[in-house]
Protein backbone atom coordinates (compact mmCIF):
# COMPACT_ATOMS: atom_id res chain seq x y z
CA UNK A 1 0.00 0.00 0.00
CA UNK A 2 1.50 3.39 -0.92
CA UNK A 3 2.59 5.35 2.10
CA UNK A 4 1.95 8.69 0.43
CA UNK A 5 -1.78 9.52 0.91
CA UNK A 6 -1.80 11.54 -2.33
CA UNK A 7 -0.60 8.54 -4.30
CA UNK A 8 -3.20 6.37 -2.57
CA UNK A 9 -5.99 8.83 -3.45
CA UNK A 10 -4.77 8.99 -7.05
CA UNK A 11 -4.95 5.20 -7.28
CA UNK A 12 -8.45 5.23 -5.84
CA UNK A 13 -9.63 7.90 -8.29
CA UNK A 14 -8.12 6.15 -11.28
CA UNK A 15 -9.77 2.95 -10.05
CA UNK A 16 -13.09 4.78 -9.77
CA UNK A 17 -12.83 5.89 -13.41
CA UNK A 18 -11.86 2.39 -14.47
CA UNK A 19 -14.87 0.95 -12.68
CA UNK A 20 -17.34 3.17 -14.52
CA UNK A 21 -16.13 2.31 -18.03
CA UNK A 22 -17.35 -1.30 -18.30
CA UNK A 23 -20.73 -0.21 -16.90
CA UNK A 24 -21.07 2.42 -19.63
CA UNK A 25 -20.20 -0.19 -22.23
CA UNK A 26 -22.89 -2.44 -20.77
CA UNK A 27 -25.44 0.38 -20.96
CA UNK A 28 -24.39 1.15 -24.55
CA UNK A 29 -24.89 -2.50 -25.40
CA UNK A 30 -28.44 -2.49 -23.97
CA UNK A 31 -29.25 0.71 -25.86
CA UNK A 32 -27.85 -0.62 -29.12
CA UNK A 33 -29.76 -3.90 -28.83
CA UNK A 34 -33.02 -2.17 -28.04
CA UNK A 35 -32.58 0.23 -30.96
CA UNK A 36 -31.97 -2.61 -33.38
CA UNK A 37 -35.16 -4.30 -32.18
CA UNK A 38 -37.09 -1.05 -32.42
CA UNK A 39 -35.86 -0.19 -35.90
CA UNK A 40 -36.23 -3.74 -37.17
CA UNK A 41 -39.89 -3.65 -36.21
CA UNK A 42 -40.22 -0.28 -37.88
CA UNK A 43 -39.12 -1.68 -41.22
CA UNK A 44 -42.76 -2.43 -41.90
CA UNK A 45 -43.79 0.68 -43.80
CA UNK A 46 -46.98 2.31 -44.97
CA UNK A 47 -48.49 5.49 -43.55
CA UNK A 48 -51.69 6.80 -42.04
CA UNK A 49 -53.23 10.13 -41.31
CA UNK A 50 -52.72 11.80 -37.98
CA UNK A 51 -54.77 14.28 -36.00
CA UNK A 52 -53.97 16.40 -33.01
CA UNK A 53 -55.38 15.39 -29.64
CA UNK A 54 -58.62 17.17 -28.69
CA UNK A 55 -58.71 20.44 -26.74
CA UNK A 56 -59.02 19.90 -23.01
CA UNK A 57 -58.57 21.45 -19.60
CA UNK A 58 -57.73 19.50 -16.44
CA UNK A 59 -57.74 20.80 -12.88
CA UNK A 60 -56.25 18.51 -10.26
CA UNK A 61 -55.67 18.34 -6.52
CA UNK A 62 -53.04 15.88 -5.33
CA UNK A 63 -52.18 14.67 -1.85
CA UNK A 64 -49.33 12.41 -0.72
CA UNK A 65 -49.00 11.30 2.89
CA UNK A 66 -46.49 8.81 4.19
CA UNK A 67 -43.13 8.36 5.89
CA UNK A 68 -43.55 11.60 7.84
CA UNK A 69 -44.12 13.63 4.68
CA UNK A 70 -47.21 15.41 3.49
CA UNK A 71 -47.18 16.87 0.00
CA UNK A 72 -50.22 18.35 -1.62
CA UNK A 73 -51.23 21.06 -4.04
CA UNK A 74 -53.05 21.89 -7.26
CA UNK A 75 -52.18 21.33 -10.90
CA UNK A 76 -53.66 22.67 -14.13
CA UNK A 77 -53.21 21.40 -17.66
CA UNK A 78 -54.57 23.30 -20.67
CA UNK A 79 -54.40 22.21 -24.25
CA UNK A 80 -55.82 24.12 -27.21
CA UNK A 81 -55.53 23.82 -30.97
CA UNK A 82 -54.63 27.10 -32.62
CA UNK A 83 -55.21 25.61 -36.08
CA UNK A 84 -55.77 22.09 -37.37
CA UNK A 85 -52.01 21.58 -37.38
CA UNK A 86 -50.81 23.58 -34.35
CA UNK A 87 -51.66 23.00 -30.70
CA UNK A 88 -50.48 24.84 -27.58
CA UNK A 89 -50.28 23.46 -24.07
CA UNK A 90 -49.60 24.87 -20.63
CA UNK A 91 -49.07 23.05 -17.33
CA UNK A 92 -48.74 24.41 -13.84
CA UNK A 93 -48.08 22.28 -10.78
CA UNK A 94 -47.50 23.04 -7.09
CA UNK A 95 -46.03 20.86 -4.33
CA UNK A 96 -46.62 22.10 -0.78
CA UNK A 97 -44.16 20.02 1.22
CA UNK A 98 -44.17 19.40 4.95
CA UNK A 99 -41.36 17.01 5.82
CA UNK A 100 -40.52 15.11 8.97
CA UNK A 101 -39.11 12.05 7.21
CA UNK A 102 -36.74 9.58 8.84
CA UNK A 103 -33.72 11.36 7.24
CA UNK A 104 -34.85 14.68 8.59
CA UNK A 105 -35.70 13.42 12.07
CA UNK A 106 -32.33 11.70 12.55
CA UNK A 107 -30.07 14.63 11.64
CA UNK A 108 -32.16 17.80 11.22
CA UNK A 109 -35.49 19.46 12.00
CA UNK A 110 -38.83 19.21 10.22
CA UNK A 111 -39.25 21.77 7.43
CA UNK A 112 -41.81 23.10 4.99
CA UNK A 113 -41.26 24.32 1.47
CA UNK A 114 -43.02 24.90 -1.82
CA UNK A 115 -42.14 23.79 -5.32
CA UNK A 116 -43.63 25.38 -8.43
CA UNK A 117 -43.41 23.82 -11.84
CA UNK A 118 -44.52 25.32 -15.15
CA UNK A 119 -44.40 23.93 -18.67
CA UNK A 120 -45.26 25.41 -22.05
CA UNK A 121 -45.48 23.35 -25.20
CA UNK A 122 -46.24 23.67 -28.88
CA UNK A 123 -47.08 20.86 -31.29
CA UNK A 124 -46.98 21.02 -35.05
CA UNK A 125 -48.59 18.34 -37.20
CA UNK A 126 -47.47 18.01 -40.78
CA UNK A 127 -48.99 15.14 -42.71
CA UNK A 128 -48.17 12.14 -40.53
CA UNK A 129 -45.38 13.75 -38.55
CA UNK A 130 -45.95 15.35 -35.17
CA UNK A 131 -43.22 17.67 -33.88
CA UNK A 132 -43.25 19.27 -30.46
CA UNK A 133 -41.16 21.52 -28.27
CA UNK A 134 -41.66 21.77 -24.53
CA UNK A 135 -39.97 24.10 -22.04
CA UNK A 136 -40.14 23.46 -18.32
CA UNK A 137 -39.10 25.24 -15.15
CA UNK A 138 -39.27 24.00 -11.58
CA UNK A 139 -38.23 26.14 -8.64
CA UNK A 140 -37.86 25.69 -4.91
CA UNK A 141 -36.12 27.93 -2.40
CA UNK A 142 -32.89 25.97 -2.96
CA UNK A 143 -33.32 24.36 -6.39
CA UNK A 144 -33.97 25.80 -9.82
CA UNK A 145 -34.40 23.40 -12.70
CA UNK A 146 -34.88 24.36 -16.36
CA UNK A 147 -35.22 22.06 -19.33
CA UNK A 148 -36.20 22.02 -22.97
CA UNK A 149 -37.49 18.97 -24.83
CA UNK A 150 -37.84 18.30 -28.54
CA UNK A 151 -39.90 15.37 -29.77
CA UNK A 152 -40.84 14.00 -33.17
CA UNK A 153 -43.32 11.20 -33.91
CA UNK A 154 -44.27 9.58 -37.19
CA UNK A 155 -47.28 7.44 -38.06
CA UNK A 156 -46.44 4.73 -40.52
CA UNK A 157 -47.44 1.28 -41.79
CA UNK A 158 -51.11 2.05 -42.37
CA UNK A 159 -51.45 3.68 -38.95
CA UNK A 160 -50.42 0.47 -37.24
CA UNK A 161 -47.06 1.88 -36.22
CA UNK A 162 -45.97 5.09 -34.56
CA UNK A 163 -42.28 5.89 -34.17
CA UNK A 164 -41.00 8.62 -31.90
CA UNK A 165 -37.73 10.24 -30.94
CA UNK A 166 -37.06 12.82 -28.25
CA UNK A 167 -34.25 14.80 -26.72
CA UNK A 168 -34.21 16.79 -23.49
CA UNK A 169 -31.57 19.11 -22.11
CA UNK A 170 -31.82 20.25 -18.50
CA UNK A 171 -29.83 22.67 -16.41
CA UNK A 172 -30.19 22.77 -12.61
CA UNK A 173 -28.95 25.38 -10.13
CA UNK A 174 -28.58 23.99 -6.62
CA UNK A 175 -28.22 26.13 -3.52
CA UNK A 176 -28.38 25.47 0.22
CA UNK A 177 -30.68 27.40 2.50
CA UNK A 178 -28.69 29.22 5.18
CA UNK A 179 -25.45 29.07 3.20
CA UNK A 180 -25.13 31.92 0.72
CA UNK A 181 -21.72 30.72 -0.46
CA UNK A 182 -23.08 27.41 -1.68
CA UNK A 183 -23.83 27.33 -5.41
CA UNK A 184 -23.66 24.22 -7.56
CA UNK A 185 -24.82 23.23 -11.01
CA UNK A 186 -25.80 20.06 -12.86
CA UNK A 187 -26.73 19.29 -16.45
CA UNK A 188 -28.94 16.50 -17.74
CA UNK A 189 -29.19 15.01 -21.23
CA UNK A 190 -32.01 12.64 -22.17
CA UNK A 191 -32.42 10.75 -25.42
CA UNK A 192 -35.48 8.58 -25.97
CA UNK A 193 -37.14 6.55 -28.70
CA UNK A 194 -40.48 4.80 -28.86
CA UNK A 195 -42.39 2.37 -31.01
CA UNK A 196 -46.14 2.01 -30.72
CA UNK A 197 -47.47 -0.98 -32.63
CA UNK A 198 -50.99 -2.27 -33.21
CA UNK A 199 -50.66 -6.04 -33.12
CA UNK A 200 -54.28 -7.07 -33.65
CA UNK A 201 -57.79 -5.60 -33.60
CA UNK A 202 -57.69 -5.95 -29.80
CA UNK A 203 -54.02 -5.67 -28.86
CA UNK A 204 -51.51 -2.82 -28.99
CA UNK A 205 -47.93 -2.67 -27.72
CA UNK A 206 -45.45 0.05 -26.93
CA UNK A 207 -41.69 -0.18 -26.59
CA UNK A 208 -39.81 2.80 -25.15
CA UNK A 209 -36.14 3.27 -24.47
CA UNK A 210 -34.38 6.21 -22.87
CA UNK A 211 -30.77 7.06 -22.07
CA UNK A 212 -30.06 9.76 -19.49
CA UNK A 213 -26.67 11.30 -18.74
CA UNK A 214 -26.17 13.61 -15.76
CA UNK A 215 -23.15 15.76 -15.08
CA UNK A 216 -22.33 18.03 -12.17
CA UNK A 217 -23.45 18.19 -8.57
CA UNK A 218 -25.80 15.24 -8.06
CA UNK A 219 -25.87 15.17 -4.23
CA UNK A 220 -28.49 16.37 -1.88
CA UNK A 221 -26.58 19.20 -0.13
CA UNK A 222 -28.26 18.50 3.22
CA UNK A 223 -27.96 14.74 3.46
CA UNK A 224 -25.24 13.02 5.47
CA UNK A 225 -23.86 9.52 5.86
CA UNK A 226 -23.14 8.00 9.25
CA UNK A 227 -20.00 6.19 10.34
CA UNK A 228 -18.75 4.44 13.46
CA UNK A 229 -16.79 6.76 15.73
CA UNK A 230 -15.94 5.31 19.12
CA UNK A 231 -14.53 8.67 20.24
CA UNK A 232 -18.01 10.20 20.30
CA UNK A 233 -20.44 9.53 23.17
CA UNK A 234 -23.12 8.45 20.68
CA UNK A 235 -20.66 6.11 18.94
CA UNK A 236 -21.65 7.44 15.53
CA UNK A 237 -20.46 10.41 13.49
CA UNK A 238 -21.95 12.12 10.44
CA UNK A 239 -20.33 13.57 7.33
CA UNK A 240 -21.67 15.00 4.08
CA UNK A 241 -22.51 12.68 1.20
CA UNK A 242 -20.12 12.62 -1.76
CA UNK A 243 -21.49 11.44 -5.11
CA UNK A 244 -19.72 10.95 -8.43
CA UNK A 245 -20.30 13.94 -10.72
CA UNK A 246 -21.55 11.84 -13.61
CA UNK A 247 -24.29 9.28 -13.93
CA UNK A 248 -25.33 7.46 -17.10
CA UNK A 249 -28.52 5.43 -17.11
CA UNK A 250 -30.63 3.46 -19.50
CA UNK A 251 -34.27 2.40 -19.23
CA UNK A 252 -36.47 0.30 -21.48
CA UNK A 253 -40.17 -0.30 -21.08
CA UNK A 254 -42.62 -2.64 -22.75
CA UNK A 255 -46.35 -1.97 -22.46
CA UNK A 256 -49.25 -3.98 -23.82
CA UNK A 257 -52.99 -3.26 -23.73
CA UNK A 258 -55.68 -5.78 -24.62
CA UNK A 259 -59.38 -5.17 -25.28
CA UNK A 260 -61.53 -7.81 -23.60
CA UNK A 261 -64.67 -9.11 -25.38
CA UNK A 262 -67.11 -7.54 -22.88
CA UNK A 263 -65.63 -3.98 -23.29
CA UNK A 264 -62.94 -3.80 -20.68
CA UNK A 265 -59.18 -3.44 -20.99
CA UNK A 266 -56.27 -5.13 -19.30
CA UNK A 267 -52.76 -3.69 -19.51
CA UNK A 268 -49.26 -4.77 -18.60
CA UNK A 269 -46.08 -2.71 -18.21
CA UNK A 270 -42.54 -3.89 -17.60
CA UNK A 271 -39.53 -1.61 -17.25
CA UNK A 272 -35.87 -2.44 -16.81
CA UNK A 273 -33.38 0.14 -15.59
CA UNK A 274 -29.61 0.13 -15.18
CA UNK A 275 -27.05 2.85 -14.52
CA UNK A 276 -23.35 3.52 -14.06
CA UNK A 277 -23.77 3.58 -10.27
CA UNK A 278 -24.60 -0.16 -10.40
CA UNK A 279 -28.28 0.37 -9.66
CA UNK A 280 -30.44 -2.18 -11.46
CA UNK A 281 -34.20 -1.89 -11.16
CA UNK A 282 -37.33 -3.57 -12.50
CA UNK A 283 -40.93 -2.62 -12.24
CA UNK A 284 -43.94 -4.53 -13.41
CA UNK A 285 -47.52 -3.29 -13.46
CA UNK A 286 -50.82 -4.97 -14.21
CA UNK A 287 -54.01 -2.94 -14.61
CA UNK A 288 -57.65 -3.37 -15.50
CA UNK A 289 -60.21 -0.80 -16.75
CA UNK A 290 -63.89 -1.62 -16.58
CA UNK A 291 -66.74 0.64 -17.70
CA UNK A 292 -69.98 0.54 -15.75
CA UNK A 293 -73.04 1.63 -17.73
CA UNK A 294 -72.21 4.73 -19.80
CA UNK A 295 -71.18 7.04 -17.01
CA UNK A 296 -68.56 5.25 -14.94
CA UNK A 297 -65.16 3.75 -15.56
CA UNK A 298 -63.36 1.80 -12.85
CA UNK A 299 -59.62 1.18 -12.87
CA UNK A 300 -57.53 -1.18 -10.73
CA UNK A 301 -53.77 -1.57 -10.80
CA UNK A 302 -51.03 -3.47 -9.07
CA UNK A 303 -47.36 -2.48 -9.41
CA UNK A 304 -44.17 -3.97 -8.01
CA UNK A 305 -40.78 -2.25 -8.05
CA UNK A 306 -37.36 -3.40 -6.86
CA UNK A 307 -33.86 -2.01 -7.12
CA UNK A 308 -30.33 -2.87 -6.06
CA UNK A 309 -28.18 -0.35 -4.23
CA UNK A 310 -25.58 2.06 -5.62
CA UNK A 311 -22.02 0.76 -5.38
CA UNK A 312 -21.05 3.63 -3.04
CA UNK A 313 -24.07 3.26 -0.72
CA UNK A 314 -23.71 2.06 2.84
CA UNK A 315 -26.07 2.29 5.78
CA UNK A 316 -23.17 2.61 8.26
CA UNK A 317 -19.60 3.27 7.14
CA UNK A 318 -16.82 1.74 9.26
CA UNK A 319 -15.00 5.06 9.72
CA UNK A 320 -14.90 8.65 8.43
CA UNK A 321 -13.94 9.10 4.75
CA UNK A 322 -14.14 5.34 4.32
CA UNK A 323 -14.25 5.63 0.52
CA UNK A 324 -14.14 8.22 -2.27
CA UNK A 325 -17.90 8.34 -2.78
CA UNK A 326 -20.35 8.10 0.10
CA UNK A 327 -24.12 7.83 0.12
CA UNK A 328 -26.83 6.99 2.61
CA UNK A 329 -29.81 8.17 0.63
CA UNK A 330 -32.47 5.49 1.02
CA UNK A 331 -33.46 6.05 -2.61
CA UNK A 332 -30.01 4.66 -3.53
CA UNK A 333 -30.34 1.63 -1.24
CA UNK A 334 -31.63 -1.86 -1.93
CA UNK A 335 -35.42 -1.74 -1.59
CA UNK A 336 -38.74 -2.67 -3.11
CA UNK A 337 -42.21 -1.20 -3.10
CA UNK A 338 -45.64 -2.38 -4.04
CA UNK A 339 -48.54 -0.20 -5.18
CA UNK A 340 -52.24 -1.01 -5.13
CA UNK A 341 -54.34 1.57 -6.93
CA UNK A 342 -58.01 2.15 -7.67
CA UNK A 343 -59.69 4.89 -9.67
CA UNK A 344 -63.15 5.91 -10.73
CA UNK A 345 -64.10 8.28 -13.54
CA UNK A 346 -67.58 9.74 -13.76
CA UNK A 347 -68.75 11.27 -17.02
CA UNK A 348 -71.15 14.09 -16.19
CA UNK A 349 -74.62 14.04 -17.76
CA UNK A 350 -75.06 16.55 -20.58
CA UNK A 351 -77.42 18.72 -18.50
CA UNK A 352 -74.66 19.35 -15.97
CA UNK A 353 -71.92 19.94 -18.53
CA UNK A 354 -70.76 23.41 -19.43
CA UNK A 355 -71.83 24.61 -22.90
CA UNK A 356 -72.50 21.02 -24.02
CA UNK A 357 -68.84 20.19 -23.57
CA UNK A 358 -68.07 16.75 -22.32
CA UNK A 359 -66.68 16.67 -18.79
CA UNK A 360 -65.44 14.06 -16.34
CA UNK A 361 -64.64 13.89 -12.66
CA UNK A 362 -62.02 11.37 -11.50
CA UNK A 363 -60.85 10.13 -8.13
CA UNK A 364 -57.73 7.97 -7.87
CA UNK A 365 -56.14 6.46 -4.78
CA UNK A 366 -52.80 4.62 -4.60
CA UNK A 367 -51.44 2.81 -1.58
CA UNK A 368 -47.66 2.32 -1.74
CA UNK A 369 -45.69 0.17 0.69
CA UNK A 370 -41.88 0.57 0.82
CA UNK A 371 -39.57 -2.09 2.29
CA UNK A 372 -35.87 -1.24 2.69
CA UNK A 373 -33.36 -4.06 2.82
CA UNK A 374 -30.23 -2.11 3.81
CA UNK A 375 -31.44 1.14 5.34
CA UNK A 376 -31.90 1.04 9.07
CA UNK A 377 -34.13 3.33 11.06
CA UNK A 378 -31.69 5.42 13.15
CA UNK A 379 -34.53 6.69 15.32
CA UNK A 380 -35.37 3.14 16.49
CA UNK A 381 -33.88 1.19 19.39
CA UNK A 382 -31.38 -1.63 18.87
CA UNK A 383 -27.94 -0.06 18.96
CA UNK A 384 -25.89 1.39 16.14
CA UNK A 385 -25.96 -0.82 13.09
CA UNK A 386 -28.51 -3.15 14.66
CA UNK A 387 -31.64 -1.04 14.36
CA UNK A 388 -34.55 -2.61 12.46
CA UNK A 389 -34.71 -2.00 8.71
CA UNK A 390 -36.86 0.96 7.78
CA UNK A 391 -40.16 0.75 5.96
CA UNK A 392 -43.21 2.93 5.48
CA UNK A 393 -46.42 3.19 3.54
CA UNK A 394 -47.93 6.13 1.70
CA UNK A 395 -51.38 7.11 0.50
CA UNK A 396 -51.57 9.09 -2.73
CA UNK A 397 -54.84 10.69 -3.77
CA UNK A 398 -55.65 12.57 -6.98
CA UNK A 399 -58.94 14.31 -7.62
CA UNK A 400 -59.39 16.03 -10.94
CA UNK A 401 -61.92 17.47 -13.31
CA UNK A 402 -61.47 17.22 -17.08
CA UNK A 403 -63.29 19.36 -19.62
CA UNK A 404 -63.17 18.62 -23.36
CA UNK A 405 -64.00 21.59 -25.55
Amino acid at each position, binding site marked *: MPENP*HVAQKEQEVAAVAVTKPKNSKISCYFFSAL*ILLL*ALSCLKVSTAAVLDPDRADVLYHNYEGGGMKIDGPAILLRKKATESVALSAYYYVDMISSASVDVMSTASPYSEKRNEAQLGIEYLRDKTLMSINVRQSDESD*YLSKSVSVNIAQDTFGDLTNLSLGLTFGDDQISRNGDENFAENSKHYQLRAGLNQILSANLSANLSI*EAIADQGYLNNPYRTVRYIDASLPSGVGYQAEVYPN*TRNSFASKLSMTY*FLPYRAAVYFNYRYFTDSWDINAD*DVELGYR*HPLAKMLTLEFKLRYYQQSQANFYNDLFPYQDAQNFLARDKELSDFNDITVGVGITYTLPAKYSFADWRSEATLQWDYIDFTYNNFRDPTAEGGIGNEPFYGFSANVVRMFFSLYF
Partner: protein
Amino acid sequence: MNINMLKQLNSSLESNEMITFIAKKWLTLLLIIVLSNLTGCAQLNIKPWVKPYERQHLADEIMSANRHPIANMHITHVYGARESARGAEGTGGGGCGCN
Protein backbone atom coordinates in the same frame (compact mmCIF):
# COMPACT_ATOMS: atom_id res chain seq x y z
CA MET B 1 0.61 16.44 -9.80
CA ASN B 2 -1.47 17.49 -6.80
CA ILE B 3 -4.93 16.28 -5.72
CA ASN B 4 -6.77 19.19 -7.31
CA MET B 5 -5.13 18.54 -10.66
CA LEU B 6 -6.05 14.88 -10.37
CA LYS B 7 -9.64 15.76 -9.56
CA GLN B 8 -9.80 18.06 -12.58
CA LEU B 9 -8.38 15.28 -14.73
CA ASN B 10 -10.93 12.83 -13.36
CA SER B 11 -13.78 15.29 -13.89
CA SER B 12 -12.59 15.98 -17.42
CA LEU B 13 -12.43 12.27 -18.19
CA GLU B 14 -15.95 11.74 -16.86
CA SER B 15 -17.26 14.73 -18.81
CA ASN B 16 -15.73 13.43 -22.04
CA GLU B 17 -17.20 10.00 -21.35
CA MET B 18 -20.66 11.49 -20.99
CA ILE B 19 -20.40 13.52 -24.22
CA THR B 20 -19.12 10.42 -26.01
CA PHE B 21 -22.00 8.42 -24.51
CA ILE B 22 -24.63 10.82 -25.94
CA ALA B 23 -22.83 11.26 -29.29
CA LYS B 24 -22.58 7.49 -29.77
CA LYS B 25 -26.32 7.10 -29.21
CA TRP B 26 -27.20 9.67 -31.86
CA LEU B 27 -24.70 8.33 -34.38
CA THR B 28 -25.94 4.78 -33.84
CA LEU B 29 -29.51 5.88 -34.32
CA LEU B 30 -28.73 7.81 -37.51
CA LEU B 31 -26.72 4.91 -38.88
CA ILE B 32 -29.53 2.42 -38.28
CA ILE B 33 -32.14 4.69 -39.85
CA VAL B 34 -29.98 5.30 -42.94
CA LEU B 35 -29.12 1.61 -43.30
CA SER B 36 -32.72 0.51 -42.85
CA ASN B 37 -33.78 2.82 -45.68
CA LEU B 38 -30.87 1.88 -47.95
CA THR B 39 -31.47 -1.83 -47.53
CA GLY B 40 -35.13 -1.30 -48.28
CA CYS B 41 -36.66 -3.36 -45.52
CA ALA B 42 -40.01 -2.06 -46.74
CA GLN B 43 -39.52 -4.54 -49.55
CA LEU B 44 -40.47 -7.30 -47.14
CA ASN B 45 -43.90 -6.78 -48.67
CA ILE B 46 -45.71 -7.06 -45.35
CA LYS B 47 -48.99 -5.17 -45.43
CA PRO B 48 -50.92 -3.70 -42.49
CA TRP B 49 -52.94 -6.59 -41.13
CA VAL B 50 -55.50 -4.60 -39.13
CA LYS B 51 -57.70 -2.52 -41.44
CA PRO B 52 -58.93 0.93 -40.37
CA TYR B 53 -62.51 -0.34 -40.07
CA GLU B 54 -61.31 -3.04 -37.63
CA ARG B 55 -59.93 -0.59 -35.08
CA GLN B 56 -62.99 0.48 -33.13
CA HIS B 57 -61.86 -1.47 -30.06
CA LEU B 58 -58.39 0.09 -30.20
CA ALA B 59 -59.94 3.55 -30.46
CA ASP B 60 -62.08 3.02 -27.34
CA GLU B 61 -60.99 5.39 -24.57
CA ILE B 62 -60.58 2.54 -22.08
CA MET B 63 -57.62 1.38 -24.24
CA SER B 64 -55.81 4.69 -23.85
CA ALA B 65 -52.82 4.78 -21.50
CA ASN B 66 -52.92 8.56 -21.62
CA ARG B 67 -56.61 9.25 -21.06
CA HIS B 68 -55.64 11.24 -17.93
CA PRO B 69 -52.33 12.96 -18.81
CA ILE B 70 -52.35 15.20 -15.72
CA ALA B 71 -52.63 12.13 -13.47
CA ASN B 72 -49.85 10.33 -15.34
CA MET B 73 -47.53 13.32 -14.87
CA HIS B 74 -48.22 13.24 -11.12
CA ILE B 75 -47.66 9.48 -10.83
CA THR B 76 -44.36 9.78 -12.71
CA HIS B 77 -43.26 12.55 -10.35
CA VAL B 78 -44.24 10.56 -7.22
CA TYR B 79 -42.20 7.55 -8.29
CA GLY B 80 -39.33 9.66 -9.68
CA ALA B 81 -38.81 11.32 -6.30
CA ARG B 82 -38.69 8.02 -4.37
CA GLU B 83 -37.14 5.49 -6.75
CA SER B 84 -33.79 5.54 -8.54
CA ALA B 85 -35.15 4.25 -11.84
CA ARG B 86 -36.07 6.98 -14.31
CA GLY B 87 -36.76 7.26 -18.00
CA ALA B 88 -38.96 5.48 -20.54
CA GLU B 89 -42.10 6.50 -18.63
CA GLY B 90 -43.72 7.92 -21.75
CA THR B 91 -44.45 11.34 -20.23
CA GLY B 92 -41.77 13.30 -22.10
CA GLY B 93 -39.08 13.46 -19.44
CA GLY B 94 -37.78 16.48 -17.62
CA GLY B 95 -36.54 15.01 -14.37
CA CYS B 96 -37.67 15.39 -10.80
CA GLY B 97 -36.58 19.01 -10.33
CA CYS B 98 -36.06 18.38 -6.65
CA ASN B 99 -33.57 17.07 -4.13
